[in-house]
């Protein structure tokens, strides 16, 4: 990977774990500045890492061996860096208060320039919502790139939906090789077609606070944030509030009153987030359209079962049999058929629920 001298300096400075975000910025300024400025900065460092540390870092900074080792290690891990000085550093991320100096990336660099939507949600997302999230993400990828995390539930569903198109960016809460992803396999698949980003060097272990700090990058990268599911207290809400702070659009799925994993979403809608039922609700905000698709062909009996499930929400197989007046075995086959067509999904305990998609709303 070829870097400009400025990029190289940024990457080297970013590798100094002893420095905090402000120190790193000042360190660079001091190197460029006059002797007086250097002195002033060295003084300020006495309170934090100290003068001795400063001198050590300075020596390290100009040490060619250290640099070679650093870049070789990045190369070996297959990680490339996009710095704030790089041409393709996302403009939208530059506009946030604390943009990361260096983004450590793995995968398809071109995705950084795409128009993006962040999809976040709780780990405990209801099965039908997860399915809906998956569908909506796969539809959205025809126009947008999906940004998400790598947790269970909503994140995984979003990744699965976007995988086929390859338009997926995962933002990690720790370094690439620190094992921070709940779904290592899913992450590997996402990296093979899409992109993964972290603001931390590859070996950096995720801490509790890094999840929250990471949320600002997710919100900052994209033009909007969709909250798929969120309890009253949820990390997804922190991403949404960053997005609102940065002036990006916030979208949320609506829920029935009393669903624990949806209280946060409903609260967002009350505060003015866009209510989202299908991909079009999001695309229309950005002035985008989707080509019209036809409903998959349904037989008369499939149609009847589908409509029944859609009208009442979650429904037990025995109820479906009762309402449609068909024997259990036929209902089992019909439900499997609709499941395969992606119109309904199992929610556990032989219950089925309709999945909201663009096509069945038209």
């Amino acid at each position, binding site marked *: 990977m070829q870097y400009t001298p400025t990029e190289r300096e940024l990457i080297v400075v970013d590798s100094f774990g002893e420095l905090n975000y402000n120190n790193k910025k000042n360190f660079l300024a001091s190197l460029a500045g006059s002797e007086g400025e250097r002195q002033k900065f060295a003084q300020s460092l006495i309170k934090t890492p100290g003068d001795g540390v400063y001198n050590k870092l300075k020596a390290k900074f100009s040490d060619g061996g250290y640099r070679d080792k650093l870049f070789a290690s990045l190369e070996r891990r297959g990680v490339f860096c996009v710095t704030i000085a790089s041409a393709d550093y996302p403009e939208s991320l530059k506009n946030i208060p604390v943009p990361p100096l260096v983004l450590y990336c793995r995968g398809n660099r071109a995705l950084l320039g795409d128009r993006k939507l962040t999809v976040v949600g709780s*780990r*405990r997302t209801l099965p039908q919502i997860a399915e809906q999230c998956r569908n909506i993400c796969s539809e959205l990828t025809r126009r947008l790139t999906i940004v998400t995390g790598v947790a*269970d539930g909503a994140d995984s569903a979003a990744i699965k939906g976007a995988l086929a198109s390859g338009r997926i960016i995962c933002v990690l809460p720790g370094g690439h090789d620190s094992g921070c992803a709940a779904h290592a396999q899913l992450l590997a698949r996402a990296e093979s077609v899409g992109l993964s980003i972290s603001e931390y060097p590859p070996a950096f272990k995720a801490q509790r606070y890094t999840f929250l700090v990471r949320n600002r990058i997710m919100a900052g990268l994209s033009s909007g944030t969709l909250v798929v599911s969120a309890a009253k207290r949820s990390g997804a809400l922190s991403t949404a509030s960053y997005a609102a702070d940065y002036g990006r659009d916030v979208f949320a799925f609506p829920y029935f009153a009393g669903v624990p994993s949806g209280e946060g979403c409903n609260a967002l809608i009350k505060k003015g987030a866009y209510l989202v039922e299908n991909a079009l609700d999001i695309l229309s905000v950005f002035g985008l359209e989707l080509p019209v698709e036809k409903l998959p062909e349904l037989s008369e009996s499939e149609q009847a079962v589908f409509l029944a499930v859609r009208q009442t929400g979650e429904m037990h197989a025995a109820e479906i049999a009762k309402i449609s007046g068909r024997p259990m075995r036929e209902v089992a086959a019909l*439900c499997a058929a609709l*499941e*395969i067509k992606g119109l309904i999904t199992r929610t*556990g*305990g032989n219950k089925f629920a309709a999945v909201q998609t663009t096509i069945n709303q038209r």
Partner: protein
Amino acid sequence: MLSKMTSYALVGLDGVPVEVETDINKGMVRYELVGLPDAAVKESKERIYSAIRNSGLKFPVNKITVNLAPADIRKEGSHYDLPIALSILRASGQLASPADGLVALGELALDGTLRAVAGVTAVLIAAKNAGYRRFIIPAANGGEASFIEGIEVYALNSLAEACAFIDGSAEFAPVAARTFESVIKSVSYNSDMSLVKGQEVAKRALEIAVAGGHNILLSGPPGAGKTMLARCIPTIMPDMTFDEALEVTKILSVAGELGKEGIVALRPFRTPHHTATTVSLCGGGNAGIRPGEMSKAHRGVLFLDELPEYSRGALEALRQPLEDRVITITRAGGAVTFPADFILCASMNPCPCGNYGSAVRPCTCTPAQIRKYRSRISGPLLDRIDLQVEVDGVGYDQLASDEAAETSAEIKARVERARAIQRERFREDEGITVNADMGERQIKKYCVLSPQCEEILRSAFERLGLSARARSRIIKVARTIADLDLSAEICPEHILEAAGYRNFDSSRDKF
């Protein structure tokens, strides 16, 4: 003086004739028992001594040597008491007539009465094949003898009766023959499908499982009725044939678990507790290898409640018998093969707290916990379970309703019809009787799929995230569903219904 009596040793489910030789000579007074006897056989001396004296006979005061030949087989069990006692009596001249061609089995009580022993059915069958025709067994084992034709079995009460029988001083009638049909009519299962309220999905799945001999996994919250459903499986299985019943009886007789009836007419339903060790499931033992739960469930149902709680070793041990339908146990002393042809029915909770998918109680598990819980069942084992269904809680209204449900007999009739179709289909295939036994070759031959069905299968794989190995399972189940439908072809709806019974596979993707 030297005398000989014949008895039998058990090796697995087979019997080996054992000659009990006794020699009484002048010399120092002592009693020697040789021929690899185990502790129970060695202790027989004290029982025999008392039994002989309490039967009004004399225990010789001389040098007595008893040999159990062949001397290289370990002799186990208490059934050598009677032959040893008879042979001592003959050697001491108290019993005049020879007892050639007579096989004696029985444990002696101190007062000389005969007590029941294990393995009588197995011995009778083996000895009959070896050409023996006359037997003395304890009266309590008489029932076991009444179903075996072509032999004369005398079920006697005491050592004194045995002596009188051999001497001819008293007349005894051999055990009267009974027909298997008469027994089958007199017994019935405690459970019935009509007593299970609701659960239409699970009942249908059980019907398919039994019709095609498929293994089944029931998952559902605690108290949903998984065990009750499982107990109904034998009630919808076809009645056992006499040959099947004899196989089962032999196993249980060797295990010493045979009831008074003397034959097993109801299909076995075994429920080993989840603390069961690998050996208790497979069978084992050092000298006399005994059948385990898998063999005791032969021709019936092995029910493993709370499947993830079983030790990993025990679960992995199931894999080979599920494939081969027999289990071979190898020990330093030799190898024994027991039949183990059963339907595996397993049950489990959907998640650690048990409430996932419950309408009433919320599930408190995280996806990671659910994933961990479900991963305790290995993929290879899951691959041998063709049907995976959810059992859901039943509401109070359903419990209280009087709505008539189908009885086991009605379902059994359909199952028998489907089994008949399968027997016809596999007439030329050695060792295959039901759809579940089909290998890839038979699937190719008997389960031709229309392009439409292929298309459905393909999209099912993409949409439901099924594993490649699930494909043949789905096709086999679809074949059974088609048989239940009396349809020669596998239609799209059969494939669809079969795909619906793989929800453990498809839900793996969700966690």
